[in-house]
């Protein structure tokens, strides 16, 4: 059954069928081949989506929609501009810090690229080469799934089972996220210096920084409140996401006063449709994972790999290598859904820390989103900036290398990932 299922999936996926539907056919083939009741299809699809933790994804998306609709981002941008606008490559730094701010609300790279690209690209284009501006936006957007909250981590935690907590994974992303941010800012400075870009912002002035921090304070408080609440056990990730929605709605309506009541249904609709892309993958993948479980695939795979090596580091290297290749070709959510249920239990059997493994799993695929040939973020940025993939690659490759360097550091020094969640009791 498993071979039939995998065969059907690869043939249909390579012929261009949307991955969610290719998964559905793959399950159908296995059901027919294994003489399994077809009624299990809608049942498992519905049960896959009927999940309280998964609800956090559309809610965080909706908070991001309200942030953009209420022009809340503009205050974050103004604040970042007051702090780092005058340094070499100032506008690039503003973009990276704004990406960090957006990441701490939406938790998704593609939605972040769309929001950040639309907001920042017009200014970036005025001062910098289009390729460099696009590279900075793409890289800053890729902080979305690393900095908490993260839709990718929610999906991974759900697929990996009870061995890993969403809150713990969120905290695992904090230190690598900061390392990435600092690294990106360093790269932006160096690239701006080499290209001879002039400083763009107004001269640094403490009074302006204080004024902008007062304006942005209410917004900067939101991630502290939401993430702090989740990590502190005050509420779950889903409840935190709902608080973020209400918070951003109130800020958009009453603080910035840019969010119009008439725009709210549109924000809700867009958040639902974006989430449905992940939802469809999860729904149609569930009958496939059911077939895998029925055929004891995780057990067979575990025996096969453990027969090959008893060394956890070799296993980790194999998985990392595989994810590197998978991430280059397959959409990351599809990869979490199909591969996390197979490899997370094996990692546990090898005695690998589930938070460490989970974070490396997620980050590997997140970096894959910026790696050619199928780096989805690169294509999104090409669409927003109207540039060719070649032009973008000329500027974006140092940022891609940086992300792989941080990934390698996290791999070889596990404390970077695990120290913070362990200190917080995860």
């Amino acid at each position: 059954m498993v071979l039939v299922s995998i065969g059907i999936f690869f043939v249909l996926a390579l012929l261009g069928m949307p991955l969610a539907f290719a998964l559905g056919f793959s399950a159908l083939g296995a059901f027919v081949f294994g003489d399994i009741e077809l009624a299990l299809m809608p049942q498992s699809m519905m049960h896959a989506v009927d999940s309280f933790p998964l609800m956090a994804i559309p809610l965080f998306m909706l908070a991001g929609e309200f942030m953009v609709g209420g022009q809340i981002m503009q205050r974050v941008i103004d604040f970042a501009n007051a702090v780092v606008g005058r340094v070499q490559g100032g506008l690039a730094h503003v973009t990276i810090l704004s990406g960090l701010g957006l990441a701490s609300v939406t938790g998704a790279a593609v939605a972040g690229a769309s929001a950040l690209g639309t907001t920042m690209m017009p200014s970036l284009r005025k001062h910098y080469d289009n390729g460099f501006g696009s590279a900075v936006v793409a890289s800053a957007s890729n902080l979305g799934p690393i900095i908490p909250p993260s839709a990718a981590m929610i999906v991974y935690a759900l697929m990996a089972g009870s061995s890993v907590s969403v809150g713990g994974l969120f905290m695992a992303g904090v230190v690598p996220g900061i390392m990435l941010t600092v690294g990106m800012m360093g790269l932006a400075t160096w690239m701006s210096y080499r290209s001879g870009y002039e400083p763009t912002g107004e001269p640094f002035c403490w009074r302006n920084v204080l004024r902008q921090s007062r304006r942005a304070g209410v917004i900067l408080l939101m991630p502290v409140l939401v993430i702090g609440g989740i990590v502190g056990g005050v509420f779950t990730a889903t409840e935190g996401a709902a608080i973020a929605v209400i918070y951003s709605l109130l800020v958009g309506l009453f603080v910035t006063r840019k969010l119009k009541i008439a725009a709210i249904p549109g924000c809700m609709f867009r958040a639902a449709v974006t989430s449905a892309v992940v939802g469809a993958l999860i729904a149609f993948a569930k009958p496939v994972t059911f077939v895998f479980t029925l055929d004891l695939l995780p057990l067979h795979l575990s025996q096969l790999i453990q027969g090959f090596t008893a060394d956890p580091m070799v296993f980790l290297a194999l998985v990392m290598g595989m994810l590197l290749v998978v991430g280059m070709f397959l959409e990351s959510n599809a990869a979490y859904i199909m591969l996390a249920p197979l490899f997370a239990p094996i990692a546990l059997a090898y005695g690998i820390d589930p938070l460490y493994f989970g974070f490396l799993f997620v980050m590997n695929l997140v970096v894959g989103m910026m790696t050619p040939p199928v780096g989805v973020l690169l294509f999104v940025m090409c669409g927003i900036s109207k540039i060719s993939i070649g032009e973008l690659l000329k500027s974006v490759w140092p940022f891609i290398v940086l992300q792989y360097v941080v990934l390698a550091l996290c791999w070889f020094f596990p404390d970077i990932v695990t120290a913070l969640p362990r200190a917080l009791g995860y």
Partner: protein
Amino acid sequence: MSNRVLDGAPAAEASGASPLVRRYQQLLKAADGLSYGLITLAMTLMTGLVTAQVVLRYFFGDSLDWADEISRLAFVWSIFLALPHGVKKGIHVGIDILINQFGAGLREGLMRLMLALSGALMLLVLWQAILVAQEAWGEMMPTVELSVSAFYIAVIISMAHTFLHLAFLVWQGTHVWGDE
């Protein structure tokens, strides 16, 4: 990755489509409009209930027994109802490295074939979901006097609506919605 909708091709009505095509398109637009309203309602309910639970728990030391179940129901509805809109916008991810190597005609033909097969899958899941919903009709949710079939109704509507969109794309071409 597939990004069909961003190509900006003309919509069917702008290209002098037949009355039958225009009528089908009107039907789809009416279904989309109704679905848009239901998605908004489901998202509002979901956000409102989850927030209300936190407020009740921390400020009133109370909770609503049914809030968890109904918020999950609203979530299931919002996701399944939004699925066909993703098909219309062409945002469901796929691998197009191989088919991009083919000529435009062959690529379009192959994409239509894949969408037709997807449509058949929707019909099969629709049929099975109806059977499951019928069977579960008498079974009530633990906290509310509502049949558990309410969850499956979302699947039924989603599959029917998605099928209608897929059929239209197969019939009129994958660029039919253009920038809409």
